[in-house]
């Protein structure tokens, strides 16, 4: 028996007797015969623990992971170093096997951690309030759009095309189903076009959404974007990289109204893209429209400080169809990991990580641009840890050729931006040594020199 069941046959017999039935069957009478499953589920037979581990190990071994390969992909998921303390602490059963802290007296550990998380997100972003987490960056951004629509009572959302293509897809999916409208404002030269944004906004614009650094890794003129939004009576929504905020001016200082981002970088695994951590912060004045759980400090009967979920009346379990969001389960454990990560890094560490990313990405870009035929499509626009290069050989081909070098190359941009079909988006974080970058550059050089085979491109 491998079902983790604690009761023995004898226990079961005693329990059925206490219930007053002869068999389990008697308890299942409410289920009509016609819909009873009269066979075993068609699933593979049970495996013992050792066998299940071997099986999963063999599946895992089919993947090119960070222990076997150096990976230069970014685009929303990042290979940042995760100090050993993070996984150990966040993996403690008291945190991981608890439910949402509905009963605060038994959940002070998680509640205090989330209160600290909210404080840290506010500190990083320069905003006044943070919620306890959203599903991920993309759905967080979609929730921001809906929140802006509800605050402004307007139905159009303007999104720069320099925002992550997946995020735009998710916003569009959310908005489509509600009758709201998404307008994409073209980007140019690696950044959002201010003219395009200005042209797109109008008196029905609920918010303007930009990403900073944007999908191409470039810095945006956030102040100008915010101004465009505010002039139109719309809210300004920024999607940010929390690692970049170790160096960059926080969105709060640009008067951004809602700040959203993907928190995976903060101590969480790349995990093939999930689970992820959407962080979500805004100005205090929007608190009644704010989606998601929020933890607040309060006192107990003896006046001691304690923490509890608060402002619950915004939420689905109380407000039902009038709730500010339908979110219930969120990403608490990833928020905890982010909290641990930010404390372990601290002021100096976060600055250092950001600076290392900056330096290494620039070193890599400089070295790659020395290769014949490799060029920078966006000139000298400032970038953080990601950058685009144009390649004289199809990026997909280059990537295929990098694999034998145990290198996972950057993202070919063609599928997202046809005008950048020869473009590759590379990411270089603090986990890459100079040697790693030099090996990448050598391997790219070799890939470019290789004659095209029938299969390539």
């Amino acid at each position, binding site marked *: *028996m491998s*079902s*983790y069941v*604690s*009761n023995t046959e004898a226990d079961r017999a005693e329990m059925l007797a206490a219930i007053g039935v002869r068999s389990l069957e008697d*308890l299942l009478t*409410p*289920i009509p015969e016609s*819909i009873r499953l009269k066979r075993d589920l068609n*699933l*593979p037979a049970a495996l013992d623990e050792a066998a299940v581990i071997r099986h999963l190990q063999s599946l895992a071994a089919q*993947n*090119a992971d960070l222990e076997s*390969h150096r990976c230069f992909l970014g685009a*929303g*998921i990042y290979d940042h170093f995760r100090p050993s303390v993070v*996984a150990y602490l966040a993996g*403690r059963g008291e*945190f*991981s*096997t*608890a*439910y949402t802290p509905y009963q*605060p007296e*038994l*959940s002070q*550990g*998680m509640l205090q951690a989330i*209160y600290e998380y909210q404080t840290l997100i506010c*500190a990083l972003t320069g905003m006044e309030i*943070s919620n306890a987490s959203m*599903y991920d960056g993309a*759905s967080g951004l979609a929730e921001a759009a809906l929140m802006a629509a509800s605050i402004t009572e307007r139905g159009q959302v303007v999104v720069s095309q320099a925002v992550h293509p997946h995020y735009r897809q998710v916003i569009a999916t959310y908005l*489509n189903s509600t009758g709201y409208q998404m307008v994409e404002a073209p980007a140019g030269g690696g950044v959002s076009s201010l003219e395009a944004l200005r042209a797109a906004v109008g008196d029905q614009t609920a918010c303007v959404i930009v990403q900073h650094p944007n999908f191409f890794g470039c810095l945006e003129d956030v102040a100008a974007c915010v101004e465009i939004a505010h002039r139109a009576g719309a809210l300004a929504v920024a999607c940010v990289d929390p690692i970049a905020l170790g*160096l*960059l*001016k926080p969105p709060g200082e640009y008067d951004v109204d809602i700040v959203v981002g993907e928190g995976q970088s903060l101590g969480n*695994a790349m995990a093939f*893209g*999930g689970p992820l951590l959407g962080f979500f912060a805004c100005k205090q004045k929007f608190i009644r429209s704010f989606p998601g759980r929020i933890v607040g*400090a309060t006192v107990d*009967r003896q006046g001691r400080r*304690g923490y509890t979920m*608060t*402002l619950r009346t915004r939420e*689905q379990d109380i407000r039902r169809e009038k709730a500010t*969001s339908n*979110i219930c*389960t*969120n990403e*608490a*454990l990833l*928020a905890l990991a982010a909290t641990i990560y930010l*404390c372990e890094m*601290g*002021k100096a560490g976060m600055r250092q990580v950001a600076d290392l990313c900056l330096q290494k990405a620039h070193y890599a870009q400089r070295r790659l641009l020395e290769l014949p035929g490799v060029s920078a499509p966006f000139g000298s626009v400032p970038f953080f840890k990601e950058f685009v290069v144009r390649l004289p050989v199809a990026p997909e081909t280059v990537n295929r050729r990098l*694999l034998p070098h145990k290198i*996972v190359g950057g993202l070919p941009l063609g599928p997202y931006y046809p005008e950048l079909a020869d473009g590759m988006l590379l990411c270089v974080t*603090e986990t890459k040594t*100079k040697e790693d970058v030099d090996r990448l550059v050598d391997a790219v050089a070799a890939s470019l020199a290789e004659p095209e085979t029938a299969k390539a491109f």
Partner: protein
Amino acid sequence: MSEPLIFEKSDPGCHGANLPRCDVPYTDPSVLLGADNLRPDLPLPEVSELEVVRHFTRLSQRNYAIDTGFYPLGSCTMKYNPKVNERTAGLPGFAALHPLQPEETAQGALAVLYELQKMLAEVCGMEATTLQPAAGAHGELLAMMMIKAYHADRGEAHRDIVLIPDSAHGTNPASAARCGFKVRSIPSNAQGRTDLQALAAALDNNVAALMLTNPNTVGLFESDIVQICRMVHEAGGLVYCDGANMNAMLGITRPGDMGFDVMHFNLHKTFSTPHGGGGPGCGAVSVQPCLEPYLPVPIVEKVETREQPGARYRFNCDRPRSIGKIHSFYGAFLIAVRAYTYIRSLGPEGLREAGENAVINANYIRARLADAFEVAYGNQPCMHEVVLSAVRQKQQSGVRALDISKRLMDYGFHPPTNYFPLIVPEALMIEPTETESKQTLDAFIEAMISIAREAQENPEVVKAAPHRTVVSRLDETAAVKNLDLRYTAVCEA
């Protein structure tokens, strides 16, 4: 002993992480990024690694969890979260993988996604599955989107009403509303089940769907489910199953066979993945063929061609009727790994055993507590959970369900779910799960009986509970009145 905030331990100049130095030529950030783009300060805490370890170890000890005790939180299926799941999910081949890697470098990951999609479809008797939703409510929202697209495609975009029983979880109406539907509530009948007459009356050609939880939130199986589905279908609507209570049905009965068109699973309930103190989860959604075209992209497919024998897995994004995307990538992959590990560990027999024992455990609690408390909707067989009511206690001595819950803490137990479902006054919703032993259930039952006695003999001790927790009852009203949502000293420092 209380634990200060990490900010209160900060010591300027102190640091934890041991980071690399810069090994490439250094250029000042103000040159690379422009001085204007840089932040002047970074108000984060400054503590050593030892302080970090101690702080979060101590915080963890201030948290109740399945690993520390019985957690009969109704509707949440707090079963044992096997440690082997953590081991497999922690394998670098899964955890240290980038979602945009070339497919040929992630075949093992794609295999897990594909096989789990298939297994879940089999468990619920439907056609296809997406793992993209990050939680149950996310799955509900997705389903609403798909239902909307389905009706629109059939030229019935006017169907803008979703029917939801009054016993439903709050996410149901919230998800429907989030998708632009109007919500109409269907009352429950005296047996705690959907009132068929009320349903019939509500059904017209503006109804897009009925959202139904089965077993419902009173822990009762909707015995008329076949008829209910037929009625909705005849009115041109679709039927959504909130699968939060799937644990009761594993290997016993399947929503797809009942007539449901679409459902969500909570892998973080039924399939033993840890709830993480609030998340992450995975709200996988399975559909019948009619909704299959609308699933979000990408879907994982298995291909076996004559040229390339041996299975290959790939993402398919080319699905013109798909509603689009609802997640940055493919959903909570590591949760999928855990659920896959669980299903492979249990097999078909193990899953059925889980379901059966969940039902026995819940009925045992029901039978043993039927004297001390009211059982909602009479003392009839329940499925995986039982809903008690503290109406009698409230009437007799003013002891409410919340008081009983707080008092349970003093006995070392996590309380049941309170005040849900809304249709049961003073609800105490108890879901023991199959992984708890009779010994544990007996101890819990005795505690409940003892509290019932206290409610009569010494109600004040119950009303003032908890007495043995790290903090006593917290003032939730004050929390709303004097909003304190972050430690402000740090940001203004």
